[in-house]
Structure formats: C-alpha cells, structure tokens
C-alpha cells in the first residue's frame, strides 16, 4: 500500500467506532457487575428480613407456649392469675408488637358441634366485645386453630383484620394448643381428643414489622404478603406505601404453617456511591476518550497529509531547481570543475571540456593538476590552499599550454564542504592585451618621434638659434612650443602610467643626496614658476634618500608644478625636507585656494582633479598624482595631502633614508 493510499484510510472514524465499541463493552461489563453486586446486596437484605421475622415470631411462639404451659400445668387459671403472669413478663418491653393475648376455650355443644370461644383477653381495655366470640365461625382462625390442635405446634392465621378493630389494619393471630394434663399426644387423634383450648395472641402486622426492622433490614424497602403470590389484597406490611423500584427480589417462607412472601425492592440509595456510577463513568469517560482519540488521529492524519503534500511540492521544486542549476552549469561560458578532497575531478562542465579540448569522461577522476602546465602545478596547489583567484598556464589535451584564470571556491554539499574551480581561457584576452601593448609601443615611438622634431624645431626657433624673430612670430612660436611640451608630457604620462599599471616600471634605487633631487626639481620648474610669478623657497636639503633619482625628482617636479599652477601670482611655494632615523619627509607647501574635502579622498586616483575643468585650464593630465603615488609606493614610502580651502595645500611624502652604513647600493637591477 502506498503511503498516500494509507493516508487516505479514514482512520479517525474507524478508531472512533472501535473505541466506542470498546467503551460500550466495558460499560456492559460494569453494568453486569453492578447488577450482580446489587442483587447480592438485596439478597443479604432479604436474608436479614427473613431472619428478623423468624426470630420475632419464634419469640412470640415462645411466649404463647409459655402461656399454654401455664394452662396445662394448672387445673384452673383465673383471669387474675393470667394477668399477673403476663404482667410479670412485661409484654411491652420484652414482646413488643403483641396486641393482645388470651385463652380460647373448646366448647362441646349439645348438637355435638364444637365451638372455639374466646374466654379471656389481656389487655382487656375497650375490647370486651371480643370475649365470647366463637372463632369456629371464622374460617381463617378456625383453620389455624385446628391446625395447631392437630400438630401441637404454634400456628398463625392468614391475613386478617383483628376482631373489633375498626381501622381494619392487616393482622394475624397465633394459636398454641392447650392439652389436658397427662394426656397422650402421640397421634392426631390423641391430640384432638386431649385439646381443651388454645392460647391465642394477636398482632397488627405493622406494629410487629416496625419493631422487627432491625439492623439487618434497615435501609431496605420490603413488603410482606400473606400467601405465595404478592397480591395487593394480601399485603401484610410494606416499608413504603409505593413500591417504586423496578428491581425486586421475592422469597416465600413458611412461618408457623403460613406461607409469607417477602419482596425486596432495590433502590439506588442502597448501593455504595462510588459503585453506583461506575458504569456511567466508564461510558462517559470512554466516549470522551474515544472522541479525543479520533480527533487526535484526524489531526495527525491531516498533518501527515499536509506534510506529505508539502514534501512532494518541495521535492518537485528541488527537482526543478536541480534541473535549472544543472542547465546553468551546462550552458555557462565559464569552465567549471569540482573535485573531491583528494583533488580528483568530480564534475567537468561543457565549457571546461571546450577549454581543455577534452571530453568530461576523460577528465573525471583525474587529478586537478592534470589541467595545468607542469611548471604551474606546485604554485597552483599553494593557491588552492588559499582559495584565491589567479592566473596560471593551463594545459590542453594535446599538451599545449594556454593562459587561464582560475578561481577556487568552496561550496556546501551534502557530503560536506567541497572544492570547485571556475576557469576562464585567457588566450583571447591576452591577445588583446598584446595588441594593447603593441599599440602603446606604436604610440610611444610613432607619436613621440614627430613630436620630438616639432618641439626641437620650435625650441630652436624660440631660442633664437635660427636668428631673431619678430615679436609676433616669437609669441606664436612660444605658444606652439608650450603646447607641444604639454602634448609631450601627456604622452609621457600616459606611457608611464601604462607601465606602472603593467607593473613594468623599472626602478634604480640607490642612495641619492636630497640636495640633488631638490636642485634638479627646482631647475625643472623654474621657468614655469617665473611664468606664473611664483617664488620658490627651500628649507633643508640634508641627508640621502634611498631612491630612484630620476623617479623621485619626477615626483617632486610634479608636486611643485601643481603647487605653482594653483598658486596666485606673487605667492611663494615652499619645499621642505625633514630627515628622521628611517625616512626622509618631503613637503611641498602652497598658499593656493586649497582642495575641497570631497575631492581629497580621490585626489591620488588616476584622471582625478579637484575640478575637472582645472584639467584644461591648468594643463594637467590628471595622471600626475596617481603616478607620484605609484612611484612613492614602489619606494616603500607613503604619500598624502593636507588641505584647507582658501588656505592652501601641503603635499608630503616619505621615502626611506639611506643610512650612513649602507655601502652597497640596494636593488640596482630592481624591476
């Protein structure tokens, strides 16, 4: 079964049904247990009632027998004696429930029939009508009387209203026979013959039962019927007028010849409080738990569905992203290779195949170094460690070396950090570079050569070597000469800058007297200073610098030219040098209009001037300071400027000092 099919199974309803079924099963078991327990409780209560009634009736029987014994022991028992006898027994206290007790006399009528005459009754208060009643005319009493006569046992009547009881409360009468003293009582016939009367005792059922409800039956509702069926007409006693409970337990017990039916009703109040709600608790708790479980399962299933959906979506996105990345790698123009931690190639893209003239399958698994010209391998391994980008000589499949640029970079992959290299074939680029160099060489020679002639010719004219010129002609020649000089400077600066850019500026560094540098610089700018009517002053020329005389002079000339150009007429430009232990500091101070703060930052950048319009006005190329900076840096020195608008500027630089102990010129062939 697929995962998505699994997630479509309606687990929540199934779980709910199962759980509810389980709950209901548990409920049924608990109910059954409760029912059994209740029945047992009621049985016990019924036992209690039965025992209590038996004991009470036995007690009454004992009383009645005692009275019977009294009559049998004495020929005559006067009503007074009987009263005294009963009084000594304290009936109210010892035999509660006894309504009255007395003697029934057996009377033989003249017609041969027998009468059972009530002869005495104690207590007699208000009951005088009972005395003399013939009980033989009343079937229930007669039946009980004759049964006791025949068996010699105590008997009770069926349910009956007591004589002279206007309320007609249910009651019964107990009889015990009194036989003639000394009579043989072996057979029924003997007994019939020997009986002389009966002791009777009568009872209101409710009074008997109310005093009988002892601890065993306490709290239970029950009803007692005369007979074997609980007929309402036979009801002797009920603890409650209404019998509400649906659950009843019934038992028929014979008491002194009469079957009595005891019916116990079960009431909730009779069950312990905790057991009573057990099944309901199980049902409710089980149902709630079922709903919760179903809910949780539904939520989990829905979450799982969503997660699976999301995973599928992500997976699709990933596949698309992977395809996209692969496509980029396949189509990019830069060669790309990746390698494992041993430096063995793990990926070679088509651009790399083109660069190395080799199909990927031939390169994969080979060391990265095979892509390089042998001379460069060691150096590349070092570069690889530093993860830089650099130029090297690559090697094509046929062994032909070619210039390339390689950039190593790390990337995060599932297996950890991996190394990659992007490779650019610089063959075409270097051809262009060569063309540029050639162009520069052509400019160098072809442009300067005619300019040299122009300048030379103008110089000779202006210098009067060709004879005196008219003032106008002289002025024109001067203009032409000045501009040819400017053009020459521009070309020279461009060529020099190109050399610096290529790192091909040669330096001849050796100890040079500061005085020499200053003298040559001043000489170079003197004419210009005169022209601008700016005076030059020098402060301090002691010491030697460790420098390329020509280049350092070029820097000082450059700074002086700028100072002169930007000084007002009549101003002074000051050159100071200050030797220290390790370096010489040169300062060129002017009182021109200064340089705005925003321009200061880029003043040493190529083609930068404080104001581009200055370029034309001042005849500068915008390269002078960039060249100066490069020259000073090549000396291992620093260059800088401080300037305040309207107050002037101070350009300074420091170059290493030549110590007195330095004998050997340093870096004569430095390049």
């Amino acid at each position: 079964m697929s995962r998505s099919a699994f997630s479509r199974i309606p687990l929540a309803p199934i779980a709910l049904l199962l759980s509810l079924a389980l709950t209901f099963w548990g409920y049924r078991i608990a109910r059954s247990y409760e029912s059994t327990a209740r029945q047992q409780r009621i049985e016990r209560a019924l036992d209690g009632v039965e025992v209590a009634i038996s004991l009470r009736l036995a007690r009454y029987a004992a009383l009645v027998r005692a009275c019977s014994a009294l009559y049998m022991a004495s020929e005559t028992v006067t009503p007074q004696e009987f009263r005294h006898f009963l009084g000594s027994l304290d009936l109210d206290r010892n035999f509660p429930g006894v309504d009255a007790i007395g003697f029934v006399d057996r009377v033989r009528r003249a017609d041969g029939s027998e009468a059972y005459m009530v002869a005495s009754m104690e207590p007699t208060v208000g009951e005088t009508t009972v005395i003399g009643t013939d009980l033989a005319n009343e079937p229930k009493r007669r039946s009980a009387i004759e049964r006791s006569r025949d068996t010699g046992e105590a008997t009770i009547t069926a349910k009956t209203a007591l004589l002279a009881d206007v309320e007609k409360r249910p009651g019964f009468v107990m009889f015990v026979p009194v036989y003639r003293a000394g009579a043989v009582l072996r057979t029924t016939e003997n007994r019939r013959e020997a009986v002389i009367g009966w002791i009777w005792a009568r009872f209101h059922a409710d009074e008997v039962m109310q005093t009988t409800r002892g601890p065993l039956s306490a709290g239970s509702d029950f009803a007692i019927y005369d007979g074997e069926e609980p007929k309402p007409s036979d009801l002797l006693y009920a603890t409650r007028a209404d019998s509400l409970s649906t659950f009843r337990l019934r038992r028929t017990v014979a008491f002194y010849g009469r079957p009595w039916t005891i019916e116990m009703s079960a009431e909730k109040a009779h069950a312990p409080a905790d057991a009573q709600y057990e099944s309901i608790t199980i049902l409710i708790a089980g149902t709630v738990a079922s709903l919760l479980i179903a809910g949780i399962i539904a939520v989990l299933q829905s979450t799982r569905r969503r997660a699976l959906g999301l995973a599928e979506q992500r997976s699709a996105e990933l596949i698309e992203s992977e395809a996209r990345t692969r496509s980029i790698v396949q189509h990019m123009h830069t060669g790309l290779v990746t390698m494992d931690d041993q430096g063995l190639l793990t990926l070679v893209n088509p651009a790399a195949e083109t660069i190395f003239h080799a199909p990927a399958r031939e390169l994969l698994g080979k060391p990265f170094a095979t892509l390089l010209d042998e001379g460069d391998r060691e150096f590349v391994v070092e570069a690889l460690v530093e993860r830089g980008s650099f130029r090297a000589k690559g090697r094509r499949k046929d062994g032909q070396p070619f210039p390339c640029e390689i950039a190593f970079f790390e990337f995060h992959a599932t297996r950890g950090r991996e190394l990659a290299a992007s490779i650019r074939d610089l063959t075409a680029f270097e051809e262009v570079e060569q063309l540029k160099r050639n162009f520069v060489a052509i400019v160098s020679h072809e442009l300067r050569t005619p300019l040299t002639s122009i300048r030379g010719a103008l110089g000779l004219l202006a210098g009067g070597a060709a004879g005196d010129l008219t003032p106008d002609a002289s002025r024109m020649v001067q203009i032409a000469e000045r501009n040819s000089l400017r053009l020459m400077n521009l070309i020279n600066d461009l060529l020099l800058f190109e050399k610096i850019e290529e790192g091909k500026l040669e330096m001849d560094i050796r100890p040079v007297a500061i005085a020499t540098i200053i003298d040559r610089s001043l000489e170079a700018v003197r004419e210009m200073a005169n022209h601008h009517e700016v005076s030059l002053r020098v402060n301090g020329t002691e010491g030697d610098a460790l420098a390329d005389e020509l280049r350092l002079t070029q820097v000082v000339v450059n700074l002086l030219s700028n100072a002169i150009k930007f000084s007002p007429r009549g101003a002074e430009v000051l050159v100071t040098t200050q030797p220290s232990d390790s370096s010489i500091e040169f300062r060129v101070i002017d009182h021109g209009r200064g340089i705005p703060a925003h321009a200061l930052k880029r003043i040493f950048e190529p083609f930068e001037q404080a104001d581009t319009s200055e370029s034309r006005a001042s005849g500068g190329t915008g390269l002078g300071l960039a060249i100066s900076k490069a020259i000073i840096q090549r000396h291992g020195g620093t260059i800088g400027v401080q300037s305040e608008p309207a107050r002037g500027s101070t350009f300074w630089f420091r170059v290493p000092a030549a110590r007195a102990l330095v004998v050997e010129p340093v870096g004569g062939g430095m390049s």
Partner: protein
Amino acid sequence: MKILIVDDEEDVRAIAAFSLSRVGKMDVIEAASGDEALVLAAAEAPDLILLDLMMPAKDGVATFRDLASNAATAKIPVIFLTASVAPSEMQRLVTLGALGVITKPFNPMKLAEEVQAVIDGAHR
C-alpha cells in the same frame, strides 16, 4: 669638434644637427642608417658619434658593435640617443662601452651642453 649624428628620422637628425652646429658651434655630419654611419665614421673619423638606438635594418646596438669591431672606428666615443628611459636599458648600453645616453626628446637649445656634460663625466 666633429660630430656624426646617426638617426633614421630626417627631422630629428636635422634638428640635432642644427642645434649642435648653431648653438654648440660644432661640425656636424649626418647618417640616416647604421650602414651609412659605418662608412661615414670610417671616412670622416668624427670626434663623437650620436647614435639613435631604434632604427630599422641595423639598429643602434648592432651599429655600435660594428663600429667597435672596426679598428678605424673602434676608438670613436659613442653617445646613444634613445626614447627608452628604463634604467636597466641605460645600464646595458653603458656596459656595452657607450660613453653615455641622452634621452629623447632632448632640449635642442641644450643638446650641446648635454653632450659636453657626458664627455666631461666620462673623462672625470
């Protein structure tokens, strides 16, 4: 003093000649190529040769070697004229046996002075 100027550029040659003769009051002879210079140097025996470095066919260095290999011209001092200012290049030329190097472009009014300075410097 008789000076031989060797330069393939006619204008440069003319200006240098003009400068040295008019300003420096020297006798000047001119050659437009290395080969012509070898012939003239042998024939005229100048006191000094101003030799351009970059020339087609036979360049300055080749011409210098040929001059040195010819007994008739071996002792004539040579000053190179060159646009190149690389110190190593200058050093190389001096090492070859040149008296000195004057860089182009030169100031025509001062060329004679520069030549004299190189001669003085070499003899010091």
